[in-house]
Structure formats: C-alpha cells, structure tokens
C-alpha cells in the first residue's frame, strides 16, 4: 500500500495528540501531573494542536476535501465515519476542559478531562479499526493492529506529557507510563512483524483467478502497458533490505531510545530531565513516523495478485 504522507502524518500526529489528551484527562485528577492551570492549558493546547494538524493533514488525502463533512454521516457501518464522529465529538469536552481550566472550576475540569480522555481513546480505536477491518490487506487485518495504534498513541502522548511535566519538575508519572507503553510497543511491534512475516497469504493468484484447478498460475500479459491507479495505490512495494533497516530504525528511535532517555530523566531531574524528555518525545514521534510509513509500505493488497510480481512496486 502506498504510504501517503498525508495519512502517515495524520495518524502519527493525531495519535500523539489524543494520547496526550488521554493522559492529561486521566492523570490530572489523580494529582500525578503538575496541578496548576497554566500547565494543563499548555498540555491541552499542544494536544489540540497536534490533533487538529493531523485532521487537517488527513483532508489533503481526499479527492474532494470540501465535502469532508459528509464523512460524519455513515457511523452505522463505516469505521472511517465513526473516527470522524469521535474526533469531532472529542473537541466538545476538550473545549469545555479548556474553559474549566481558564475559569478554575476544579470539578468541571475533572469531568470534562475524563470525557475528553474517553473520546481520545475511542477516536484512536476507530483509527485502528479502519485498517483492521480491511480483509484484502492481510498485514492490517491482524489482531495486533488495533492494540498497536492504542499503545503507540498512549506511548507518544505520555512521552509528550513527560516532556511538559519535566519542565515543571513533575513528569515522573507520565515518564514511567511512557516507559511502560514504549516497552510494550517494542514487544508488540516485534511480535506483529514476526507474525506477518511468517503468516501464509490467505489469497493467492490461484484463488484470485480460480484457475488453481489447472495448476500454478502465472501472469502472462498484463491488461495495460503503463501503470494505473490500482498499482500506484495498492501495488507499492518496499525493498526487503530497506524494510529490515527501517524496522531497526523504528524500534531503536521509536521505542528503545525514548524509553532509555526517559528512564535517565527519572533519575536526573531538573533541567537535564527536561532536555532528556524533550529528546525522548522527539525521537519517539520520529520513530513512530517511520513505523507508520512501514505499516503502509509493507502492507500487501490482494489486487496485486492479478498482476505479475514485478509490476507491483
């Protein structure tokens, strides 16, 4: 599948924003992040900026962006529509949380913080389900895809909150959570890659054409001499050598390095902790961009079974 920059950026940024919103809403009432209003307002604005940038980026993927509002209508059947509804709905408690923080209404802030956290989790769940519900892409229709989206959003959000907290000398709890989620993400991603590498394909050229009864099926003549939308969109292939290296980059920069840096930050404290946590959050987002790019680049679509293996690239 073609890794469209608009979607890679959208899912990564909005995932981090929703993760940040989730942890802010949850940890603030528990007193696990600095309790002052300016801190919470800064965290909330960063979360909303990331989410909004991501959503705007996703509009760039549409053929008719001016009609995007129509995507809110089919929540009964479509995970993409549900994602849109959840994303828009989450702005309501998030906005009210901002209002409560500015007015210093403690109970109201707690309530809308928790509602915003629920909306953030629901939105990321819907994002994951868009991919996990597509049968023609076996790498996406995998039980670890949705837990992956949730874990990576939780990880990047917690890392961002740890960064903000570290500047106020109160980032220990989100840093610990980011370490846990990062370690979880590391294990999950490795298990996912091992699973998709070893799983046999559900469909083959033989089942795609139904000619398996005659024996092995090989594409002889393609239907068109030049490329087409299907091959450009669904036939993207990444060289195996690059995939292996990029997986290493994603694991090292996306998970291992941020976890190590945040662990150091826990012990360091002060300005050093703030610097370490900032580096950790930046590396984490960078690694997740690589991870998300691979999520598309390594995914294979059944339509390519109709074409000779060399045509798909």
């Amino acid at each position, binding site marked *: 599948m073609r890794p469209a920059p608009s979607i890679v950026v959208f899912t990564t940024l909005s995932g981090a924003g929703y993760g940040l919103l989730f942890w802010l809403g949850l940890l603030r009432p528990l007193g696990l992040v600095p309790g002052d209003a300016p801190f919470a307002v800064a965290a909330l604005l960063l979360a909303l900026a990331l989410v909004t940038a991501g959503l705007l980026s996703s509009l760039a993927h549409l053929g008719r962006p001016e009609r995007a509002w129509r995507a809110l209508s089919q929540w009964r059947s*479509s995970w993409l529509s549900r994602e849109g509804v959840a994303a828009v709905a989450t702005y309501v408690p998030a906005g009210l949380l901002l209002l409560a923080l500015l007015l210093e209404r403690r109970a109201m802030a707690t309530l809308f913080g928790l509602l915003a956290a629920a909306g953030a989790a629901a939105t990321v769940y819907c994002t994951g389900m868009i991919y996990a519900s597509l049968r023609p892409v076996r790498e996406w229709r995998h039980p670890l895809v949705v837990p992956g989206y949730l874990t990576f959003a939780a990880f990047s959000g917690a890392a961002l909150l740890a960064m903000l907290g570290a500047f106020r000398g109160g980032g220990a709890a989100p840093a610990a959570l980011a370490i846990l989620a990062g370690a979880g993400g590391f294990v999950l991603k490795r298990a996912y890659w091992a699973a998709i590498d070893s799983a046999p394909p559900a469909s083959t050229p033989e089942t795609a054409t139904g*000619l398996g009864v005659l024996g092995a099926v090989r594409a002889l003549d393609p239907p068109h001499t030049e490329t087409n939308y299907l091959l450009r*969109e669904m036939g993207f292939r990444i060289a195996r050598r690059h995939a292996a290296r990029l997986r290493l980059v994603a694991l090292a920069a996306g998970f291992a390095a941020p976890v190590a840096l945040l662990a150091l930050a826990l012990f360091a404290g002060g300005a050093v902790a703030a610097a370490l946590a900032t580096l950790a959050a930046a590396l984490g987002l960078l690694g997740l961009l690589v991870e998300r790019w691979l999520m598309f680049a390594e995914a294979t679509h059944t339509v390519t079974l109709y074409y000779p293996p060399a045509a798909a690239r």
Partner: protein
Amino acid sequence: MTSLPDPPPGAKKLGLVIDLDTCVGCHACAVNCKEWNTSGHLAPLPDFNPYAAGAEGVWFNRVHAYEAGEGEAGRTVHFPRSCLHCEQPACVTVCPTGASYKRAEDGIVLVNPETCIGCGLCAWACPYGARELDEDAGVMKKCTLCIDRIYNETLPEAERQPACVLTCPARARHFGDLGDPESAVSRLVRERGGYDLMPEMGYRPVNKYLPPRRRAAAGAPPQEAAPRAEEIANPLLRWVDRVLSR
C-alpha cells in the same frame, strides 16, 4: 446509506457470467465499456497523459492473461476483471459518506459522484481492484453494470445489455439475473461449474466465472507404418531393406 439492503428471498441479483473457456483476450469488452461509460452514468472515464509515454486512465474492465498449469496440461487463459457486484460488498459498508451503495432492487453496486469525497477507502476494501479513482474529478468510479443500458427503453430490447456483453465477439460474457435459479445465466453456472473469485474473502460475488473446459484426452500417438519385407515390390529396395535390417 452505506448499510447493505436486506433483499427479500428471490430478489434480483443482476450480474455477469464470464466464460474463461471461450474468452480470446481481444479486449473488445474493455474498449466498448470505456466507450459507452465515458459518456454514461458515471461519466467521464478520464485518461491522463493519453498521447505520450505514461498514458493511463480509468477503466471499469481490465483483461489479464495467465498461464496455468505445467507442460502439456498448461493452459493460457484470458481473464477479464471487473466489479463483481458482491452480495457482501465491504466497499459499500466502509464508505463514510453514503456515496457508495448497493441497490436493493437488483443488487447493482454504484457510486454517487455528487457525494463521494474521494477518500479511496472503498478501493482499499475491494479485493478485486474494481474501483479506480477519477483523479480529475476527485471521486471514485466503478462498473455500473451499464445501468443506463439495461433499463434504457429508448434502446431496442436486444441491446438492453451491458456494453461488454453486447460487444464480445466470442460470446464469452453473459448477463442476467443470478438470483433466479431458472435464468439462463444460473443454468449456465450450474452446468459449467461456475465459481466465485477469492471465496475466502467472504464478499460473495454475484458475477461468476466459468472454468476452461477439460481438454479432450489425446489418443495414443499414431504408429509409423512399417511394411513387411515381402510387401516391398521393388527387388532392389527389398535387398537394401534386408541389408539394413541385418
């Protein structure tokens, strides 16, 4: 609404039956499809860079060719690929806007180009590659089963068939109601062992493909006539035969 209709039992299921035994791979179906549909219900079917290297465009029908099997048992099979108007079309249910829909009255899967946002998710959801994005209009395009022909009362009745079916010189394409077990197409599917593409995907295509017929078994190779010595009339040749046979 992108939720699927709940058709009553015996409801019409219009679709195609494609005979892989008689298809000669001439691409006439694809060309006539393009010709009709570029001014039809989902018009236009644009071409990009049409007169230079890298020409490409939107087509509802693509004709592949495969080799299947090895050696003497191997076959070359021409294989037209188009929308199968599935009974469980995920391309419809994933649509966030309701632009994609499956008609309750005949099962045809269509796109409303007025409400499509061109997100491309339906094309991802189709295992068969039946949907192609019109990058000029920014909306998705797909086979309409020539809905503007089959119900078109301004056409002579014999021509109320999809363009691909009408034009096929090998009569490898058949159109009809696959929901009616006694229709000509349903009988054809029963008699010839018509099958679904990628049944493991669970989309339950309406269109069926007829497999290549079994090749007639070849008899024993002809034996070379070997005349007996006494049958050779010419004495010189009889002598040569005797010498060489020694």
